[in-house]
Every structure is written in structure tokens, then in C-alpha cells.
């Protein structure tokens, strides 16, 4: 049973409801929400913030008077408990209600008149809800799926560093531990989204981008062989136990030995904090998902303890060892050491970071090495590190000893073949290419996408929404092709085939539909090995 996607926007609702014969349900929901909103439970106008983000556990606080217990995180932190409870109560109500019809996947989104509620069930019964204000500003047009991807990204990054939310709750049932971890973590994360004083959510302007995917560097065969040879050396840097590694060049992935899911998480983190661009404080970062970082001071807000039910544990990173909370996403904490390894004191002085690998269900030590624009992330199994820092320095030594020559060679090869920020620009096209199997995407450089007219971007945004809806209706992979003509006569085209998606904007007003499909055809043949050649 597919998810019940609920949108008040009539056409979507109509479509969804029609397809499932649930027309009635849609109206019931709409009515339900309106009742709630009328009761004032859904009133969101008190705070100036345009974004609310909360995490709550449905298994907690089931008794009257203990409702606060279920709140694990709320942003902005300075709103009253009653507001927090009203948001969470509404969400909980909707989840419970929709579960009646779709037990496997409850609601994903609710579009109200002034707000959108985006739901994500991060772990069983643990929900993340994002409430975004719909204002008159044109910028506030988003795609639900893109917002959901933000929630997913926060969660998987959190799990990578701290383990699952449930496990932390099990560790300390009072919830203090998870709360003390959440506040700094999510605030640090949201910092990356803020521009000036405002949080900038992925709007329609970012419609030709895909969060939660990896961007790869295209390698020539000889370069790929050199890289693989380097990977082979890195593999064996900790003796008999095999190390994993992820290699990036600028903000693009060169090689990984991890599963796609783990790769995405580690790639995201590396691009946020580790790559040469991230280290040079983000000012020169061109990576399209990451805006300039370290701008706002919102991190100071994270220490507002009034919100915490149990406010005894300090959320900031500099507490004593016992109550110490690690803030992996803290800004400006990584420095390139003399030996080429990146060092940080986030995990404590001289402590090596550890992360959790999803696929292998194991904790590994993270070592990052950088040479010019080449960043190597080496993951050493914890079993290999018996004597703590002594073994770590042995591994580092092994890397320097065995891999330096190869690193230099790879860097040289990659730099030589490096086409710059606009390497993947195809003139005449603005595109996004997503491979869902490998969780890889490639897109026109953001500078080039920015030249598109607003109408075009809105059309693509709408197109993507349509595809998202179609995709969520059925979990089976299917082929589809959609062409939309925008108000400005531009073409927005989507092609989906067996797990791969191509979105394209063509702004040549004189083009006929035939011309447009021809363009897609030739693009597919030239850059996608003919994957999207449908006719």
C-alpha cells in the first residue's frame, strides 16, 4: 500500500484520491485538519520563524500530563511548550489517523493554507516533522520531496555519528541524552542552511539538484586505475583487517569502498566539513548543495536550556567528560596538520573521531588526509585499534609510508583532467541526472542553472513534484516521460527509466515538442550511454 500523500492543492489531491478511490478520504482529512486548525491547535503565527522542525517519539508520553516527554527536539528552541505541543499534537493526530488507512506508510505531507507539514518517519515511531510557512514570497515554493530529503539527511548524519535515536533512548530512557545530542547537532546542521539571518530551505531554485546523492568525478580509465591502485594500498593500511576508504577531489567523489548509503552520508559530511573547499571556510565553495557556511550565530541559541525537560545536561560541546556532548558538525573545527592529516578537537584532545557504518553495523575510526584538493577519508575498523592513539599513529604512518607516492600521482592525474566547476556543463541544456541505484546525481553547475528564468524553474519544480507523486504511488520501477511547456515557452522534460531519472529545462522558445525530444535524445546518447533513449 503506497503512502497516502495528502495535499490540499486540488489537482494533486484529486489525482491521488482518484487513483486510490479514496476521494472521500481526502475530504475527510481536509475537514479534519480544518477542524484542528480552527481549534487553534494548528496556529503557527506566534513566532517570527518561518520554519519549525521537531522530532518526537510516539512511544513516549502517552499519559496525560507527560506529553512533554515525547518531544525530543524542537526548533526554534524559544517557542513555548504549548506551541510545541500543539504542533506535535497535530502531527501525531494526523499520523494516527492516516495509519488507519495506510499502516505501512503514514502521511508524508499536509498542505494547509498557510503551512506545509512535511513528515518523515526516521525510525519506527520516531518522527521528524518540518513545518514551513507559506508566505507570499515567491521563494517559498518548495518541493515536498526536497524538504523530506533534508529531514532524511539530518537523521542519517546523526545516526552516522551517534547511532540510532532509539539506541540512545534505550541507553537513557529519560531522554536527556538524546536531547542533549539533538540540540547542538541539528542547530549546527541548520547553520549550514542559513543565509544571513534566515534559514534558506531548498526552494524551487534548487530544483535541478538532488540532496542525498553523491556527485562523482568522471575518470579516464588510466586515472581510475591509479585511483584503484591507491585504494588497494589504503585497504591494507591497518594490517590484515581491511580498511574502507572514500576519496574526494574538490567536492566530487572519486572512489568509495562503502555501500551507497554509507557513501552518501560520509560524502555529505566530507563536503560539509572536510574537503579543501570546506576547510577554506566555505567562501569559495561552489558545491551546489552547500551555501557559504559559518555565517550565522544560531549556534549560540542551542544553549537555551529552558526548552529542555531535563536541563541538567549541557548541550554545548565544552562540558566535562561525563556530560560531554560531541558536536560533529561544529564549524571551523578541522585543521590540516603538518603531516597532511586533518585534525580536530571535536572528539576531545588527540581523540580520533569514530562513525557508525550502517551496512557493516560497526563503528570505525575516521582518518582524513588531504593533499591539495584531494581528500582521503580512511575508515579503520575498531578491532584494528587496540592500543588507542598508538595504533592510530601507526596507521597514519603506514598511509604516509605506502600511499604518499600514489596520492601524489593520483592528485596529479586528476588535476590534469580536471575541468573546473563547469566541467559538467552541457551548453544549451540545464539538466539533472539521478541514478537511484547508486545514489548518484549529476547536474548542470548552479551558476548555469541560475541563468534560467523563474518560470522555467517553477515548471521544472512542478514537473518534479509530479514525478515524485507518480513514484510514490508505486514502489515498482517504471518508465515515464513527461514534457511540460512553461509560461515562457520553455520546455521542462522528465524521463524516468529503470531507476534512473533525467530532468531537463530547455529555454529555446522556438523549439517544438519534437525539437525538444530530439534534444533529450541526443543528450541521452551522448552523456548517458543512451539510457534515456526511449523511441
Amino acid at each position, binding site marked *: 500500500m503506497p503512502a497516502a500523500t495528502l495535499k490540499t492543492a486540488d489537482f494533486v489531491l484529486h489525482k491521488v484520491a482518484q487513483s486510490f478511490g479514496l476521494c472521500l478520504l481526502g475530504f475527510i482529512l481536509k475537514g479534519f485538519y480544518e477542524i484542528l486548525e480552527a481549534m487553534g491547535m494548528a496556529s503557527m503565527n506566534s513566532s517570527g520563524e518561518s520554519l519549525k522542525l521537531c522530532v518526537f517519539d510516539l512511544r513516549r508520553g502517552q499519559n496525560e500530563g507527560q506529553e512533554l516527554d515525547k518531544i525530543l527536539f524542537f526548533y526554534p528552541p524559544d517557542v513555548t511548550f504549548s506551541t510545541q505541543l500543539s504542533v506535535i499534537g497535530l502531527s501525531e493526530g494526523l499520523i494516527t489517523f492516516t495509519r488507519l488507512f495506510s499502516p505501512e506508510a503514514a502521511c508524508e505531507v499536509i498542505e494547509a493554507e498557510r503551512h506545509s507539514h512535511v513528515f518523515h518517519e526516521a525510525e519506527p515511531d520516531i518522527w521528524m516533522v518540518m513545518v514551513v510557512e507559506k508566505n507570499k514570497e515567491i521563494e517559498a515554493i518548495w518541493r515536498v520531496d526536497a524538504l523530506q530529503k533534508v529531514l532524511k539527511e539530518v537523521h542519517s548524519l546523526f545516526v552516522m555519528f551517534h547511532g540510532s535515536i532509539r539506541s540512545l533512548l534505550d541507553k537513557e530512557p529519560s531522554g536527556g541524552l538524546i536531547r542533549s545530542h539533538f540540540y547542538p547537532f541539528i542547530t549546527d546542521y541548520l547553520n549550514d542552511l542559513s543565509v544571513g539571518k534566515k534559514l534558506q530551505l531548498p526552494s524551487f531554485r534548487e530544483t535541478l539538484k538532488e540532496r542525498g546523492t553523491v556527485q*562523482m568525478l568522471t*575518470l579516464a*580509465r*588510466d586515472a*581510475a*586505475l*591509479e*585511483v*584503484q*591502485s591507491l*585504494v*588497494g*594500498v589504503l*585497504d*591494507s593500511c591497518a594490517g590484515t583487517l*581491511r580498511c574502507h576508504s572514500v576519496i574526494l577531489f574538490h567536492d566530487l567523489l572519486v*572512489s*568509495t*569502498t*562503502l*555501500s*551507497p548509503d554509507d*557513501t552518501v552520508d560520509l560524502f555529505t559530511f566530507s563536503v560539509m566539513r572536510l574537503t579543501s573547499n570546506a576547510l577554506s571556510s566555505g567562501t569559495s565553495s561552489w558545491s551546489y548543495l552547500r551555501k557559504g557556511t559559518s555565517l550565522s550565530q544560531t549556534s549560540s541559541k542551542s544553549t537555551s536550556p529552558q526548552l529542555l525537560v531535563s536541563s541538567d545536561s549541557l548541550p554545548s560541546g565544552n562540558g566535562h567528560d561525563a556530560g560531554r556532548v560531541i558536536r560533529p558538525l561544529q564549524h571551523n573545527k578541522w585543521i590540516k596538520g603538518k603531516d597532511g592529516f586533518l585534525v580536530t578537537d571535536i572528539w576531545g584532545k588527540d581523540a580520533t573521531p569514530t562513525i557508525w557504518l550502517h551496512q557493516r553495523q560497526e563503528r570505525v575510526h575516521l582518518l582524513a588526509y588531504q593533499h591539495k584538493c584531494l581528500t582521503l577519508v580512511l575508515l579503520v575498523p575498531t578491532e584494528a585499534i587496540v592500543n588507542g592513539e598508538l595504533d592510530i599513529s601507526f596507521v597514519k604512518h603506514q598511509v604516509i609510508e*605506502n600511499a604518499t607516492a600514489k596520492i601524489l600521482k593520483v592528485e596529479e592525474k586528476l588535476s590534469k583532467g580536471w575541468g573546473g566547476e563547469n566541467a559538467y556543463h552541457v551548453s544549451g541544456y540545464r539538466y539533472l541526472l539521478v541514478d537511484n*541505484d*547508486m545514489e548518484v546525481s549529476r547536474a548542470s553547475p548552479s551558476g548555469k542553472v541560475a541563468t534560467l528564468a523563474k518560470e522555467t524553474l517553477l515548471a521544472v519544480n512542478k514537473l518534479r513534484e509530479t514525478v515524485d507523486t507518480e513514484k510514490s504511488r508505486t514502489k515498482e520501477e517504471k*518508465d515515464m516521460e513527461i514534457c511540460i511547456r512553461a509560461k515562457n515557452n520553455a520546455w521542462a522534460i522528465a524521463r524516468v527509466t*529503470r*531507476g534512473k531519472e533525467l530532468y531537463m529545462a530547455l529555454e529555446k522558445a522556438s523549439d517544438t515538442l519534437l525539437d525538444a525530444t530530439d534534444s533529450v535524445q541526443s543528450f541521452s546518447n551522448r552523456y548517458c*550511454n*543512451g*539510457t534515456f533513449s526511449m*523511441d
Partner: protein
Amino acid sequence: MKEKNSTTASTLGRILATCSKQAKDYGSCVASKVHEVEKDLCLKEFLALKNCMQHTVKIMSSRPSSSQTSVGSGALSHAYIQHPSLHCNIPESRGLFYDDANRLLICVTSSQVFSWETAPPFNPDVSPSVDSVPEGPILSVRFSLDEKVIAVQRSDCEIQFFHRETKKKLTHKCRAGSESILGFFWSDSPLCDLAVVKTSGMDLFACDSAMNLRLVETKKVNVNWYIYTHESRLVLLASGLQCKTITGFQLSTAGVVRLPKFEMTLATTESNSKPIISAGDVHLVTVYGRIYCLQVDREAMLLHTYRFYRDAVVQQGSLPIYSSKLSVSVVDNLLLVHQIDAKVVIIYDLFVDSRAPVSAPLPLLWRGYQGSDSSSQAANKENKSPESSTSNENIVMYEDAWAFLVPDLILDQTNKVLWRVHLDLEAISASSSDRTSLLEFLQRRKLEANKAKQLCLGIARALILERRPATQVTQAIDVLVTAYSYSVKAGIYKELKNEKTTATPPTDGASPDNERGRASGSSIDGEEEVEMDLPSGSSDEQQESQLSSPAISPDELYKFVFASVEETMVEESDYLVAIITEFLRSISAEKLKVDLNIYVMTVRLLARSKRFAELSLFITNKIIEPSKEVALQLLESGGQNLRVRKLGLDMLRQLSLHHEYISSLVQDGYYLEALRYAQKRKVTSVRSSLFLEAAFASNDMQHLAAILRVLSELIPGFKETSEYYTFHGLLNETSSSVAV
């Protein structure tokens, strides 16, 4: 069964008795290190023992009656002389000469000249050609290069020439008293045909077919002695009181080149302030196409090397010597320095800059028959005169009467036999620990190219099976790949497809066996091992003549190294993948191609260790080159992982392998996609029954009905075909049976 056991035991007993020393050495080595024992620890001792045992067995099997035949038997050696030798025992012989230009061994009696071809391999049954010359003293004999004229030096002022066909005779004399003839040699330079070296210089003569000598040029130098080798075309004339001033001429086909005059280095001591160099102290050797001059400096106990360039003579360091009597041979571009007093030979490879010997000094060994030749040879032998076998047993290594002939012959003047010096590449490689340089060394071998090749393959296999660090294996692979690439560019390497197919099975079977012997180090399964060795030896010999280079093509590396270790390395496919990656990198750096089965194997290995993410990187980056075989392997491995299967499908589509692509789509249940694709690409090779059968096999009658429907709309007249009837009938039947 029991009987056989007892004979085996007695054989083993005899072998052990012969090899008691080696067995003891090995035993004590193991015993002394029993606490730290690991593989290959007592490798050297083990090899000595193994060598000895194998040797004994070979000798026993070739001559069951004699107990101890090989001189210095049981000793480890790197160089040996081997049966059959060339016998030149002519009654009333007055002397033996060697004509290095024509490679003839010449034996003279008072009125006859016997000559034997010495080109390998020796044929002991060949009878010499005989020419009659008038009686008289003979100081030296040389045949002209076309072998039509025999030149005989009668005295220090007279050379006589005899035409073998016209029987014409000519006498050449020099001015008696004022000068004397030191010697002469024939030349193939365009300027002259004959050079006569006299104390006053060198006369160059042209000689026409009627055997008329015409003086072309005279090089005036005071000469004390001279040396000449035909392979270098170089004559060195020594002058001066100490004979250390050398004037050299090269009489090559390009003309006569005068080399700059140079002085040889001589250390002086108080006891001998003016040592004199004699002709026997200077040797001309040709290795790797370079000409070197080696000069013994007895006072310093050094062997100085000089290399000749076109316009310069450069001293290139010195080798230590351990004997006042010294001689050199060149076998397969290796320099063998015979330390005659010490009765050992040291092998140097002048190719590398280092002047370190290839291996430790070890004695020269005499070997009886070897390999499968033994039986036939033994039979031959019995037919032969008994004296020849006794002469073998009388061999005394480095006897005074031994003459070392250029480049690799030894003439035993006492026994009147000619030996060729051989190298034991197996022993050399067994005693070398640095495998990278050993591989380089083996790749430079030409004479026993096949043996070197097999050894290289064995080493490569062993490196991988022993899980050596990837860097080490990489170096080894690089050596082999570059050597191959070089030999292909130089045109030395020739693919021997026909021979290979017939010759490889035995060698293939034998090589792992060799390997086991080397690698295990502890199990002495002598009997079986030796038996296995015998046939392999024969096939080696057969191939040797065909193979000109030990270079190993990437395909062979795949076949004999990677494919052969795959089975045993199942548990360590990670390691093997790393090695293969290095191999591919090495190959791509040299712009070579490799058997695409290695890609199939890589896919298999990666899938086996569930490294799907990396597998798709390998595919997208084209590290694994696309091919039908790879695609099919991807489809097969994709049974565990849908993404991998998709990679395989994509590859089929990109390769335009329509038929396979459509079949796979159908197999996955994508009937409509398959049909659409077939129609779009106008693929006619796919039968419509393929879809129908697949749909029928899926047991979903809705599918079948849908396909039937689509086909009948697509293909005009489909409803009239037998297929339609068959499947339509099936459909009706099943649906009716369902209904019932």
C-alpha cells in the same frame, strides 16, 4: 603393492645415503629454528637437499649400475657442463684448435685436419669432416669464413693456404728476422678478408676467389701479443714493456675502426714493481651486444672491466678475484668468472650497474644425462665404445689442460672432449631472495627462454599464493609487463599459438608441482616430485628451440597466474582484486591488451566478496572493459544484487548485443520493454517464440495472453503462424483447466 613399497624405500634409502650431508644440514637447520619455524625458513638447505635428491634419482634412473658418477655430486651449483660432450679423440692427434669465426673444433694430425661443428646441441655421433694438408708443423689453423680455404700457420714467418675444392696452395711469408707472425684471422669487413698480426703491426689482406692475396693496408704498431674474438670483431694489440698499452681495431662489416689507445690498470707491489700482462690475462667478452674487455690484475686481485664505445674506452669498475688462475665464459649474456684455483665459478650480470655477483660462488658441476633423453641416451651409450664412458668418469674439474673457448665452451685437452657450459636457472632463482630483481634477471635470459618463462610464472604465482604485500607483487608484475612490452616493441616476442597448445599442458601440470616443492619447504615428497619433473624437462627442451624470449604476455599471465590461483584464493578475493587492479594498471600504462576473461574474473571476485559498490565503480570507470562475457557474468552475479544485474543489462544494451539484451529483459519479466526494444532496433534475430515461451514458463497466463495479443498486433499475419496456434491452444487449455 608391498613390493613396490619396499623398492621405494630402498630407493629413498640410497638417495638419502647419497645426500646425507644435505639431509643433515637441512635437519639441523630446522631443528635449530624449531621454535621460530615458518615457511621458507630453511629454504636454502631444503633446496640443496631437494636438488641433491633429484639429481641422484636422475642419475640412478639413467645408469642404474654406477653408484657415483657426477663430479662434485650433490653440490649445489649454478653452472654445469652436461652430457653429451663432443669427442674429438683422433689417434695421433697433434693438437686441438678452435676456429671461433666458424665455430669449428679442429683437430690436426701430421697430414690431416679434422673439424667438428660445435653449434648446439652437440651431436656425439657426428663424424668430423676431414681435409688433407701436406705434412708439416701446425701452429694454428683457421678456416676462411666461407670455409673454402684452410689457413695453417707453419712457423712464425709462414702461413700456408689450401683451397679445399681446387686444392690450390699458397704460401705467405713475412720478412724473417725483422718481424714474426703472431697469428692471423679471417675478417668479413669490406676492406679486407684476412688480417695477419705481426710483431711490427697488422697487415690487412684482400683475398679473391682464386686465392690471391693482396695487401690492402698495414697498421704499424709494436705488438707483443694480441687477442681477437670473432663475435666482437675486435682485435687488441698489446705493446709496451708491461704490455699494458692497448691499441684496438674493430674489423666490422662497417669497415675498420681504430679505437683510441688506452692503458690498462696495473697495481704494483714492492715485490713486483713491473708486472707484465700476458695475453691470457685479457679477455674480450660480448654481453647484451656490448663489448667488454676484462683484465686480470694479479697484484690487486681484481678483474678490471673496460667497456668499448665507438670513440672511447671506459673503465667500468672491477670485480674481486679469488684465484690467480682465472678464465671467463659468457653464457646467455652472463659473465661466468671461473676461479680456477678455488674451483668455483662466480656469475655476474653486467647489465645491471651493480657489480655484485648474481649468486654466491659455487662449483661447476658435471651432469650426466638429463630429462627424458636419458633412456635413449643410455641406450646409445651402451652401443658406444667403452672408452667414452670411462673418459666421462675421469673428469677433473678445472684441470690444467682445460681451455676456455669463446664464448661458452670448455675444451678438455686431456680427454679430448668439448663441453658447453650451461646455467642452472632453477638453482639461481632458488637461491635468490629478491624476487623483483630475480624476475628482471630471468626476463633477460634468452638461451633457455622457456625455462626462464616457467620460472617467472612460478615466482609470480608464489608471490600471490604466499600473500606477499601488494607492493612487492606489483613490482614483480611491473617487471614482467614492461619486459613483455619491450620485447613486443623490439619484435623479439612471437606468439607461438600452434606450439603452445600442444606444449602447454605438460608444463602447466609440472609447474605447480615445482611450485609446491619450493613453497612448502617441509614435505619431502621426493619420489613423486621427481617423476613429475622428468616429462616436464622434456617438454621444456622441445620448447626451448621455439621460444626466443622469456617474455610473458598478459594473456599468459592471466592464464597461468591469476586463473590458476583463483581457486585457492577464494577466501582472499580482496587481496586478489588488489593485485589484479595493479596488473591492469601496469598493462594500461604499457598500452597492452589482456584476455577479457580477467575482467570476468574480477567481476566474479568482487561479487563474491559482496563489494557491489566497487564493482559498479569498476564498470562505470571502465576499469573492467565492457564485453559480452563481462555483461553475462554481471547478469549471473546480479542474482544476488539487482544493481549489478542492471549494470549487466546496460552493458548489453550499450554493446548493441540485441539478442542477449532482449533475452535478459524477457527473463526478468520485462516483456513489453523487450518487445518495444526489439521493434525499435528492428531486431529480427529474436524469435517471437522466445517471448511466448518465457511468458509461458512464468506460469502467468495473463502474461502469455498479453504477449500473444501484442505480437498479433505487431506482426502482420502472426495469427496464421503455428506459434500462435500452439500458444493460443496452450492458453485455452490452461484457462479451461483452471476453470474446471
